[in-house]
């Protein structure tokens, strides 16, 4: 536990510091511009842009389900790549057995991709 704390804590400190730094960067730009800019709102200016026409209906409409299908396939592949990362690091030391095991895993996934393809999930119409 002590060892973990010694080697990992400074790293996380840096990550948190850069996170706060990014927030400070954006916030300071907003504050400076808030102090300098003119403020003159009017109803016509504040209506959403629709090429100058009067707005029709709500902009948050129902969307096509195909976006959702792609998101689902993405989640599967993203998790798969995360599983493969540790294997990739030690892959040269483990040799042929580990390669074949991972090849089986990837082929199963490829079969899944092929199934989605045949089912028409990858079709954008």
């Amino acid at each position, binding site marked *: 536990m002590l060892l973990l704390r010694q080697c990992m804590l400074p*790293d996380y*400190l*840096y*990550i948190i*510091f*850069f*996170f706060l*730094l*990014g*927030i400070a*960067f*954006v916030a300071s*730009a*907003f504050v*400076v*511009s*808030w102090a*300098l*800019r003119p*403020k*003159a*709102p009017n109803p016509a*200016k*504040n*209506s*959403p*842009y*629709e*090429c100058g026409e009067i707005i029709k209906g709500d*902009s*948050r*409409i129902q969307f096509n389900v195909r*976006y959702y299908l*792609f*998101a689902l396939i*993405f989640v599967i*592949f*993203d998790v798969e*790549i995360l599983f*493969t*990362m540790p294997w*990739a*690091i*030690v*892959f*040269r030391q483990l*040799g042929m057995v580990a*390669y074949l095991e*991972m*090849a089986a895993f*990837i*082929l199963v*996934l*490829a079969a899944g*991709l092929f199934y989605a*393809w045949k089912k028409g999930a*990858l*079709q*954008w*119409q």
Partner: protein
Amino acid sequence: MMTMVLKGLSALGFIAVSAMFLIWLERKVSAWIQNRLGPMMTGFQGTLQPIADTIKLLLKEDIVPKGVDFLSWWLAPFFVTVPVVMAFLVIPFSSKWIVLDLNVGVLYICSVTSLCVLGIFMAGWGSNNKYSLLGGMRSAAQIISYEVPLLLSVLLVVMQAGTLSMQGIIHAQAHGWFILKPQLALAFLIYFISATAEVNRVPFDIPEAESELVAGYHTEYSGMKFAMFFVAEYTNMFIISAIAATLFLGGWQGPWLPGVVWFLIKAYGLIFVLMWMRWTLPRVRMDQMMSFAWKVLTPIALLNLLVGGWFMLK
């Protein structure tokens, strides 16, 4: 503690200067390709143009359109810009100039930069504008689709180098850049195409196609909020080029010149290629773009992983 603050502030300075330089370069490159002059009035060859632009954007009124989703509208600029700053933690400018050589560097930079899609989608949803929503939806679909071949090609580099640390990968290329190996050259090609789509550049700029969506997800943003989207877009270009230079082109390694010069030459060379593509190629259609990601790039990347891995063991 002091060094951490200094390193952080110099990273911020680099982001600001690099974004300004890239905006000037984009305008100049587009002008040269189209046989125009580009900005000429402010300073020599218009070099002070980005500063004039920054002052103009600072002084612009901040227009909040009616019916915005307040939280996501305000948080979206943070969500696109903060990951960009965080990514600079592990970019190796030379053997000494790196803020922190994390032992999971590649995983860290890939995961942090993929957070930008959240900001883009929040901007699209929060704006209460039909163009913004369409642009945000398209952008989210595009970025997550091209994330898969991108990560699969990065995986091949990790297999070759046997480490996730950025400096470790550069040291593994001491006897020849990774791009010289056939399977990694293919991985570089897949990476570069996917990365172009990740940063919404032509030929994959359908989320902000001017002729149909005005400006896509940032149509309603003005003033400094718009500037943040712009800074994030151009710094993302630098980040993907820096990752490509590190993973495939040997990073800061090179003869005669100091390491940081080599690194910047490689990174900005790749950015120039991105700009060259933008002003040369036409835009692809949405269905072509999605089927290219899933039916061409992903199967090739999977196959490359299997065949390339086989030859690595031989």
